[in-house]
Structures are given as C-alpha cells and as structure tokens.
C-alpha cells in the first residue's frame, strides 16, 4: 500500500514537472514568434515561476484523473496482465486528454491551459499523463529486468 502511494505520488509530481516545463516552452515560443527576445536566464526564471504557480494547478488536475485512469488500467490488466505497463501508459495519457476536454468544457474560457490551444501542445501535455502511467507502474510493479538494474555508481 505504501509502495503504491509513493508510486502514485511520484507519478503525479513527475508528470506535473514535465507538463509545466512543456507548457512554459509553448508560451515562450509564442512570444519569440512575435519577435520578442528571451534570454536563457529569463527562460529559467519563467520555468521556476511556473513550477511554483502552474505546477500545483496541473497536479490538482492530474491527481483525480490518474486515480480514475489507473483504476481502469488495473482492471484491464486483470484480463491481459502481460500488457499491464501499456494499460497504465495508455490510461494515463487518454485519461489526461479526457480531463483537459472536460475542464475546458466546464471552465468559462474556451481553453484553460494555453499550451493546449494547438494540437501539438494538446498531445504533448496529454503525453505527460502517459509518462505518469509509466512512472507509476515502473515503481509499483517493476519488471524483473528493471529490478536487476544496478544503480549508477
């Protein structure tokens, strides 16, 4: 149970970190496309700001989404246990994509997260759910070869 909880926590945090950095890059790319110069130090400051302020928001979306997605993935892996890792990856990705669609339909604005305005942004942001699925199953049910992996010295 503790292992599962830690795995879930790592999945949420990992996906929130990656999702935040992705959305920041999309926002900054839109500005550079308008001929605004952005120095590396400014980029780093923006990422840090977004990790502190956007990170908790995406984590809030991820938590219930992954909870539902992983329960479904667990159910599917009962029937096809060989593909458990795939179920969690697909479940996380599809679940987060669905969550974005639901949030956008409920929020007063057409698209809550600016990076989701483009198809590429939407797919990449949704892929962070798949990444969460991989993290979760990798930590919860590591495969024999993964257990045999040695830590880097």
């Amino acid at each position, binding site marked *: 149970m503790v292992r599962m909880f830690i795995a879930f926590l790592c999945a949420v945090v990992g996906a929130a970190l990656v999702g*935040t950095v992705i959305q920041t890059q999309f926002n900054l790319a839109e500005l550079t496309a*308008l001929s605004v110069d952005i120095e590396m130090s400014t980029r780093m400051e*923006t990422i840090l700001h977004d990790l502190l*302020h956007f990170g908790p928001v995406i984590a809030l979306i991820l938590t219930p989404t992954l909870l539902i997605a992983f329960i479904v993935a667990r159910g599917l892996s009962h029937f096809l246990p060989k593909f458990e890792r795939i179920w969690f990856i697909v479940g996380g990705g599809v679940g987060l994509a669905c969550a974005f669609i639901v949030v956008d339909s409920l929020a*007063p*604005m057409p698209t809550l997260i600016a990076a989701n305005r483009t198809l590429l942004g939407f797919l990449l942001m949704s892929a962070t759910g798949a990444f969460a699925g991989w993290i979760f199953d990798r930590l919860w049910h590591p495969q024999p070869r993964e257990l045999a992996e040695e830590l880097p010295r």
Partner: protein
Amino acid sequence: MKRLMMGLVLLIATSAVTQAATLRTEILAEKLNFPWSVAELPEGGFLVTERSGQLVFISESGNKRTVELDLPDLYVAAQAGLFEVLLAPDFMTTRELVLSYSCGTERANNTCVVRGILSPQPPYSLLNTQNIFTALPKKEGAAHYGARMTWLPDATLLIALGDGFVYREQAQKLDNHLGKIVRVTRNGEAPDDNPFNHSQAPEIFSYGHRNVQGLIYDAARDAIWQHEHGPKGGDELNKIVKGGNYGWPIATFGIDYTGAKVSPFRELPGVKPPLYLWTPSLAPAGLALYKGDLLVTHLAGKRLQRLRLVDDQWQLEGEYLQDINARLRAVYVAPSGRILVLTDSAEGQLLEVFFED
C-alpha cells in the same frame, strides 16, 4: 412606481478611501436581463441593451418597453450578445445610433457594429439598420469581445475589441482586428489618417489589447482613456494614442488563470505602460468622466471607483456602492449630467447615483 422610487431612495454613506464624498443611489429600473449599456434620450427616458439581445426603452417613470430591433446574425452565449448602444453626436437631428453586438455562430463569430435610426416616438423601433463594421477574422468561442465605443471630435467612431481569449497573440498582429481598437467613419470606412494601412485591417487605431471594457474621449484634455481586463491581475487603465502598442500578450502585469506566466515581461521598449493597475483584478467594466475624474465600475470588484488625475498620475479618490454587493457592468455620465450605473445580473438594475461632494 412612485412608491417604489421613493421607497428605494437609499442614502449610502459609503466609506470612501478618502472619505471625500458620499453617494446617494436611486433605482430607476429593475429586472433587466444582464444590462450592458445605457443611453439617455434627449426627449426623456433611456435606451438599455440587455446582453440577451433586447434593446429596452425605459421611461422616466420606470416603465419598460422593448424596442423593435432586427439583428438576424446576433449570437448570444456566455459573454456574447448585445453590447453597447451609443447615440450619434447629431442624434437630435438624425435620430441615428450605433449598436455593438456579437455576430455569427458558435464556430465563427466576432464583434459587429450596426447603425440605425430610432423612430421619433414610443413605441420605438430601430429602422434602416445597416452593418458598418465586422471584426475579422470570425473566431470560435464566446469570450472577449470588447465592444465599448466612443465618438471622437471629428465624428469618427472608436470601437474597442477583444482578443477572443484563445487568440491572444493576434493582438500583436496588424492584419486582423483581434485585440485592437479600431477607428471608422460613420459609414464604416477606414479614415485615411489611420496609423496602419494593412489591406485586411486598415481600421486599426491601437493594438496589443486583451479585452477592452471602458473607452471614452475626454474633450477637456483631448485624451482617450481606456481600461481593459488583464488575466489574473494586471487590469489596466491606459491613455490611447494613435498607433500605440499596449503590450498584450508580450508585456503584462497579470499572469494566466492557471498561474503560468503569459509573458516574463511587464514592460518592453515600444510598449505603452499602463497609467493605473488593478492587481488583484477587479474586472473594470464601464468608464465615465465626471468633473474631470474617471468613474470606473467593476464586475468582480463590485464597486464604483473614482480616480483623480494628480500630477499626471491617476489616483484613487474614493470607492462606492460596495454596500449593494452587486457586480457593476457600466457607468455613464449622460449629457444631462446624470450618473447612471448598471448592475450585472439576470435581475439587473439601472441606478442613478448622486455624489454629495
């Protein structure tokens, strides 16, 4: 009605920031469905737009009657609907007025402006309506239309527009109307002395706006004052100049609703900085000039603010109407000098307020 009027005359000793003035409030009309703007008629009474699409005549005694209006492409949803009614400067002789509204469909809509002639006496109808401006491109969604308007001394019309929310970068591009203030003649043509001449958007007067909700011309100072909504923080008061870039979304004091930065920059070279900021956002909606001061009503902030220009800086002089706990959509100072305020709800009110300086 008289009894209602007398009964509802409220003396609101609102605690102003400077305690400079108190405010008395009188309800002129009630049960207005999300009223958006009001115009005082010279023959008496008021025209009020309801966002749901009705143009309503309200007599001095408070009786309401819908004005017959033909807007076949009106689109009503969320923030979309019928917006501002503005009488022409020569209304006394021509009976002309302009109306802004959202036109199109859910998949393709934007802000449109028509002009029409108000029939001479009640029951009123709007005749000979003709489109004079359509903001392009048509876009999806029902957010950020701007739609406030004001006349300039040369009888051209300024129309404030919005960025459509999800099209914010378009506010910096001069080939479209999203996030702009445009200037047109009464026939809808772009005047020759407009600052930009892109063939797709020669009407542009200024750019880099998010969602303009207040726009007035100050004859005494020969200045155009404007305010616009920032996202989370960064609501701005600006002095609009021809060709000016007001920064959205490359420079802003606000952040996105998700907490993410829209831009790392608050100011940039070539971008006009705001003259006054509301952070956290109060959602200003409505702007009027009163004795040289600016009156600003707020939606989320649920208050009327009075700003005074001191040493070239706008300063908060007082805050009022917080007692009624209502979202305030608009404030107008009518040609007669009456101060009119609209509350924003399905049971909206038209108020007259009196400063007791």
